[in-house]
């Protein structure tokens, strides 16, 4: 599975949303499903899936699906 599909799956599982709703403009706090509690699960799942530890600043800046991709490239994940 390529990184984009992998990340989409992580988002869908953590937020409890169908895959087709995971698009670049999906934003934090824009849907009830992506609230601050779901955000914690999402961050934990990203850490696990890509075997990384996001920094505190990146946890805060992870405010959309597009932002997540951008952040992950810093950790060597290619999209």
């Amino acid at each position, binding site marked *: 599975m390529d990184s984009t599909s992998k990340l989409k799956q992580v988002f869908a599982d953590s937020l409890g949303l169908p895959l087709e709703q995971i698009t670049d403009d999906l934003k934090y706090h824009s849907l009830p499903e992506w*609230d*601050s509690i779901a955000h914690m699960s999402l961050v934990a799942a990203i850490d696990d899936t890509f075997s990384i*530890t*996001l920094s505190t600043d990146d*946890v*805060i800046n992870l405010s959309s699906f597009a932002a997540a991709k951008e952040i992950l490239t810093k950790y060597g994940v290619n999209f």
Partner: protein
Amino acid sequence: MIEDLFGYPPFSLKAAQKKPLFLEALTAVTQHHIANCPEYSKFAKAFCDPSNLTAVEDFPFLPVTVFKTNKLTSVNESAVIKILKSSGTTGQTPSAIYLDKLTSERQTKALAHIVQDFIGKERLPTIFVDTKAVFKDKESFSARGAGVLGFATFGKNHFYLLDEDMNMDIEGLLEFAEKYKNEPNLIFGFTYLVWLYLYKELTAKNIKLDLSNAILVHSGGWKKLIEQSVDNGTFKAHLKEQLSIKHVYNFYGMAEQVGSVFMECEEGNFHTSVFSDILIRDPANWQILPHGTQGIIEILSVLPHSYPGHILLTEDFGTIMGEDTCPCGRYGKYFRVAGRIPKAELRGCSDTAAV
């Protein structure tokens, strides 16, 4: 403006540099609340001339209890993403604080800036001396829930010490302590819960742990502990003895001003950051008291956007010890908190500043 303050390390500004920046941000926040919260506007205009505010001392201050009796918001109802309810002492009505996306994001970011100065930038394995049940209701949080959620940002591999019925997961705790004994880790909890579970229960069960790499951050008031004759020094000494915890940081904060918390430094002083300020007022006439004199604590924060809680008169007595000169090296005002004002003395303040 407010966003500019995030560009500075939280304890890096001396008075002369901070003053104009903070005043500008505070003025903008105050104008926003005057324009968007009719009740606040009425109050502010009765209090002062809001177009002519030149010093933080002149800004109108609301008694913190006003959120118990009034629903005060400065945004449309549809913008509210969560409601924060203060724990409220037994028998008292809790405060309700309405948060929008902007306020919530500012709170998370400010808390991160402040706490990182004490624990570093890495996310650390974290023990919460609490239960996941604090998140049960997704729209409405307690102060405890907000605290746990805020600190979850700094944490990874979160471990909740308590189950829904407040029973301790001893096995999980021992596992955590073993797994992370050689790396920095974080413990977060409310002061009384930390004392009750991490110290008293473990001592009663005769369990000694090596948590020497742990940094404990706690908050929530000392009322119940003072009744048991436990002060800050006793608290630290016992946790060190039983669990080898060397780094313990208390912070002063409240549900009505989440995010811009006042962390206690290694010298035992609480610190203002670039996001906050503190004033001490004389309970007899509300005049500003000089450093070194005890009075009622007024707290100022530039973070609240969705509710007019940016300048609050607390129910606590405290003393400013100095500004920019704390031996810990952090700039800003530093202060001590003496405790709650006895109930009878409170009447004056709500009379004076009732909305």
